[in-house]
């Protein structure tokens, strides 16, 4: 399983308390940093650690922070929207150790001199929102949050923003719009780091990203880099494994752990199931057939295969699952969640979905295949990363499972129906 950094001392049925967290070094990094190290030093350390964003895009966190604009107040938005299908790592993380998350947030806020944080959380995580709100109070009591943290001149407070539920709200610029009470469409015309929330410098980071920060500061960037098993990787990663496996769940393993080892960690395939395909990082990634079992689960190695690490949410499909049906299910989701701002996604996804639906119902035609290919490729010219994400499983299906599509066409029905 490797070294546990984020899920250290994980309890099966309850979150760790502040005291428990402090017993294993919790908040030490904060005490060593605030008022003692400059924000710039923190940013450098995080940059040197090679920490890459865990929200899906894998952007180096330290680099993003270095872009922070000059204005004040500055905002930090810990992103716990987690609506990428198959993904539940942030929920697990918050539930295992809320104070680790909070310390990560406070340290990161210090690094970018943010005055306020907005903990953005999806509505189905209401219990977790309440948990965080409660623990926020505890941290504030302890002097880790609020005015003049630990007696320094650094003040930072965090509020919880409950979303009302839409996948696009996880996208950083849409999230900022959502918080401002505007329609949460993405906005590429402003630089978040200069003019984000309320027109002020803003950093949006995934909570898992932020939760890595305390350990980086405590044990150093080199240690963090050393945790990974891939060449240029860094740290550990929370992998959510679901589908036809024996022990679905969230596992913290070194970045770059090969897929098959993670599968083993999750207890291997369920009885009677054989690996047919997996999505390596949520619904916005591409299906991979078993020949990729050895692939190292990290940003670069997956990129080399033409795929993405995404959120590291691994969904495992077996031989009895129709992948046309699975892709149709995903497209149902994406079609429903499309924010509607741009044409390819708003109109093109329903078209793709319609073709898949017809294939699945045995009304497929040969000419659907090139149309699907063209349209899926054109999704990459949409306004935001939503549509390319939606196209990814379609491309995977077309690339690796074209034969299965053709079976649907030639048999005029789904070959899995009635099995």
């Amino acid at each position, binding site marked *: 399983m490797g070294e546990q950094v984020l899920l250290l001392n994980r309890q099966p049925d309850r979150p760790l308390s502040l005291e428990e967290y402090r017993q294993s070094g919790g908040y030490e990094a904060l005490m060593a940093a605030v008022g003692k190290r400059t924000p710039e030093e923190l940013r450098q350390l995080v940059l040197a650690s090679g920490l890459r964003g865990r929200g899906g895009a894998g952007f180096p966190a330290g680099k993003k922070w270095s872009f922070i604009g000059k204005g004040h107040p500055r905002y930090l938005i810990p992103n716990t929207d*987690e*609506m*990428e*299908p*198959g*993904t*539940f790592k*942030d*929920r697990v993380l918050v539930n295992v150790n809320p104070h680790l998350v909070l310390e990560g947030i406070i340290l990161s806020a210090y690094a970018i001199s943010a005055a*306020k944080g907005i903990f953005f959380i*999806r*509505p*189905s*995580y*209401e*219990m977790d*929102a*309440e948990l965080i709100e409660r623990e926020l109070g505890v941290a504030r009591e302890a002097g880790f949050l609020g005015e003049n943290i630990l007696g320094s001149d650094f003040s930072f407070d965090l509020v919880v*923003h*409950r*979303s*009302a*539920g*839409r*996948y696009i709200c996880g996208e950083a610029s849409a999230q900022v719009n*959502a*918080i*401002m*009470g*505007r*329609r*949460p469409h993405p906005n590429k015309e402003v630089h978040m780091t200069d003019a984000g929330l*309320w027109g002020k410098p803003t950093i949006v980071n995934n909570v898992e990203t932020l939760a890595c920060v305390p350990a980086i500061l405590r044990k150093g960037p080199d240690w963090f880099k050393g945790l990974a098993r891939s060449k240029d990787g860094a740290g550990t990663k929370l992998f*959510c*494994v*679901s*589908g*036809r496996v024996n022990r*679905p*769940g*969230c596992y913290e393993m070194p970045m770059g752990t090969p897929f098959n080892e993670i599968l083993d960690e999750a207890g291997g395939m369920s009885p009677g199931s054989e690996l047919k395909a997996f999505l390596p990082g949520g*619904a916005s990634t591409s299906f991979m057939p078993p020949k990729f079992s050895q692939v190292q689960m990290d940003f670069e190695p997956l990129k080399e295969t033409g795929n993405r690490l995404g959120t590291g*949410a691994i*969904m495992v*499909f077996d031989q009895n*699952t129709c992948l046309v*049906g*699975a892709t149709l*299910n*995903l497209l*149902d*989701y994406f079609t*429903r*969640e499309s924010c509607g701002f741009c044409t390819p996604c708003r109109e093109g996804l329903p078209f793709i979905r319609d073709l898949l639906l017809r294939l699945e119902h045995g009304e497929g035609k040969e000419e659907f295949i090139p149309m699907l290919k063209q349209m899926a490729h054109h999704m990459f010219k949409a306004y935001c990363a939503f549509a390319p994400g939606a196209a990814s499983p379609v491309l995977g299906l077309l690339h690796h499972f074209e034969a299965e599509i053709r079976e649907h066409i030639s048999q005029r029905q789904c070959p899995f129906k009635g099995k």
Partner: protein
Amino acid sequence: MSTLPPELQTELAQQVAAADHPREQVINIMYVLQKHYGYMSDEAVEEAAALLDMTPLEVEELATFYDFIYREAVGKFVIHVCDGVVCWMFHEGSVFDYLCEKLGVCAGGVSADGMFTVLPSACLGFCDHAPAMLINGVFYGHLNPEKIDAILEKLRREYCDLVICR
């Protein structure tokens, strides 16, 4: 004029006034009003607009965008049945169909006793317990008909307060 109880009206007005930017409260206000009215009725939209110094249209632009704001009447408990791909893999829609049949409703409808509404929902983030559903902030996993029956029974029988995001 406002049909809200004065205490609630005051409380919400204070909540708005306390915010750095009133508009950042719009979703919170909608949740509270939704809880008060049972759903985000036209009246609730207008109340929210008045509280936030927005037009009803501006509130409606948001109310109709989101999944957890119900612009039509719903039962006391809204059952969000996951139709994400992992849950799909396990039940292919049967939980949803079972619930609808059991409660005698179709998607979005309200059961005769006013207790339940069933809605299909995006992956809930409970995939490790697929198939899953969410009711009043609580996850229920590894669902099967017996389990579902027991859950419904329990909800009918035992009083429980409604959470904000339900």
